[in-house]
């Protein structure tokens, strides 16, 4: 693993998300009401909706286009046979670190 610093927790609105540009495409970085940080591909498997624009509730995000709901822990969609790819994130001293080795774009190449 190679941890990459992508900013401080407060850069993301509470119960919100920000986009992260990567070689794989956009990754959504979420911050829950309890200040936990999660990351997942910013694309709903249904119609490609930007999950970073969805409503974050509990450990879930709802896609803004058609209200598919995903569990941020597992990436699994609720009541749908689909999932989003998630990425390991750590918070150290208020800074967000993401596992850069998974974002290097090898799978895209």
């Amino acid at each position: 693993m190679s941890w990459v610093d992508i900013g401080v927790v407060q850069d993301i609105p509470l119960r919100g998300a920000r986009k992260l540009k990567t070689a794989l495409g956009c990754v959504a970085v979420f911050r829950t009401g309890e200040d936990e940080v999660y990351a997942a591909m910013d694309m709903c498997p249904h119609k490609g909706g930007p999950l970073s624009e969805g409503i974050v509730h509990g450990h879930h995000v709802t896609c803004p286009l058609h209200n598919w709901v995903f569990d941020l822990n597992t990436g699994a969609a609720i009541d749908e046979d689909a999932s989003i790819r998630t990425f390991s994130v750590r918070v150290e001293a208020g800074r967000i670190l993401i596992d850069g080795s998974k974002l290097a774009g090898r799978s895209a190449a």
Partner: protein
Amino acid sequence: MTEKLVVIGAGMASGRVIEHLVERDPDAFDITLFNAEPRGNYNRIMLSPVLSGEKTFEEIVTHSDDWYAKHGVTCRFGEHVIRINPEIKVVVGQNGHVPYDKLIIATGSAPFIIPVPGRALPGVITYRDLDDTNAMVEAAAKGGKAVVIGGGLLGLEAAAGLAERGMDVTVVHLMGHLMERQLDEAAGYLLRKDLEKRGITVLTQASTKAIVGDKHAEAVLLESGEALPADLVVMAVGIRPETRLAADAGLTVARGIEVDAQMQTSDPSIYAVGECVEFDGHLFGLVAPLYDQANVLARALLGEPDAFVVKDNATKLKVTGCDLFSAGDFADGETREDIVFRDPSRGIYKRLVIEDDRLIGAVMYGDTADGNWFFDLIKSGTEIEEMRETLIFGPAYQGGVSTDPLSAVAALPPEAEICGCNGVCKRTIVDAINGGASNLGAVRASTKASASCGTCSGLVEQLLQVTLGHAFELPKAQPICGCCDLTHEDIRRLIKSQELKSQEAVWQELGWKTRNGCHVCRPAVNFYLLADWPLEYQDDPQSRFVNERKHANIQKDGTFSVVPRMWGGITNPTELRAIADAADKYKVPTVKVTGGQRIDLLGVKGEDLPAIWADLNNAGLVSGHAYSKGLRTVKTCVGTDHCRFGTQDSTGLGIKLEQVLWGSWTPHKVKLAVSGCPRNCAEATCKDVGIVCVDSGYQVGVAGAAGMDVKETERLGDVATEQDAIDLTVAFIQLYRENAKYLDRPYKWVAKVGLDWVKERVVDDLVERARLIEAFELSQSIYRKDPWAERAKEREAFQPLADLTLEAAE
């Protein structure tokens, strides 16, 4: 002259008598105190903490040897009284006799021993005094298994103490639930769960057949045939008044020693006090009446006659750390009604028993904070009809509304008014239901209840549910969402009445099942809060759908559309140039004229939004709120300025309306139009509010639709002046903001509440109209501003958090 007073028994009641005597008249009596236990008075209530090891015996002593010495009390502790000889007024102790002028019998109570084989085996003990406690402590030190017979207060305290000291404890209780005299079944269940969490096994409806063992208790045999291995058996099935001395002395004894209101027995020189007495058919076990008796007795001895009266007593106890409370009479009865509150997750249970509009009993478990308040209501016999709906929430909630609507409705008296608009009371509705009206529509048709404003629809449905039980199925889609069982209407009502002013308050007070709602309920609650508390509550962008958070409409490819406001559909070359320049600069792929008389720039990238807003702001353009549940547009025709048929300045009125209303949040989007004449070129008759100008003034219509449904507006009123038209519009929109369910367009809301109800408030009641306008203006003092101008400064937030593609390229 000093009289000789002999007291038999040094317990809490007699201890209090002696205290009163030495305080009030230290020279009146020469006191001799007998106690079978080799010690003086201590606080028996605190034996449980001694058993569990939280306290030492020294800490619970109330009268020390020094105290007795100081007050000249002759102590004969550890000495049994053999008999009383009333003829010659002498008490005979093991170590000699003592003459008396006055005698107090305070022999307390003896533990009841169930007459089963093996009851006398070593290892079988009762729980009554310090010696019993010490025996238990000693037995527990060896570890092993304990069986406690009796699931009342004493038995459970013993069980908890022994478990605390490391024994494997089983409680055997004859009845169906624990502490059946103080608790009802539900509270007994919670208590059982708490005990089981502490590792105590509880067997109810278990009857003891025998205690078996050779030289020492080894097991308890139940009637069911089950054998419970036991190194220690504690018998705590109850107590009975200790009356043997009194009976032998020829005093009148029923269950206890009979006394009059001055605590005098059938012998005028002999008094009795405490658990050993019977007064007016009552026996006493709680400390409060014992202290009352002690006070009365002390006064009687000092020649200040007083009278003991039996009071209703509340039991507020802590059993092994669990708070419980009971007061009054909480048995079921035909004429009695219950109000019940449960919070399973916090282990809280409350039940109020009501008869004839008065609280007669209360049982509480887990949260007993309001116990005394309920006890006061029971004692005073206060009529509780007024506060019935919120009674169970205690004094803090008086004036609010119940969050448990079903039980509150069930508890309403028959004459309670359910439908305020049509004056329909509960009895009328229940009669209609019993007469065959089995759904909301039928009740409405036969009684008119909920046929007007409709806000009581929920109450009527709850009455259907209460009256018909399982036969009635609530219409679907009742709760706001899976997070909460309450309806939108209930939530709006409670936010207002309980003055809930934050999301946390709503989640907490209304029992949300999720941590912070979901995408269904959170936007609704966010709106309700900001509509009802515009100054106190701050709008939460994270509780809004993406369009309202971004102040732009998301498109299917993730880009956004940008629509600047064109007031009343009027624009000019400067604005048009700015729009054209922005379209060029940000490479906007599509520019479209909308149905609302303005221009839509489609396909703007999210990160460009703040920049394009800033450019448009520079030309004087502001957000058109084309994305919001709020005021969208006011469509107009050209009116008298240019049109040969125009009757009024429809464009001017449209602009004024848009300038008053813009920026306001509403339950759903709101679209207006003003037509200059009945030819209606602005298509005003299918808008949420549509004004048609006529020669004599303005026809204000509301509740039109031209979307999924098509519907003509209904006439709210005809007014003569432009200002009246604006006032009616503003008042209507504020009424809608205050009452409608989130995502109900005005036509849906008006269909529920009825146009007459709206007219009453907006047109007829001028005071209410003024209030609505004032409330709207108050809200607009916060929200009538351009969100683009504010957010254009926050460009950073619209950019990606980081760009890792650059690092990868390096």
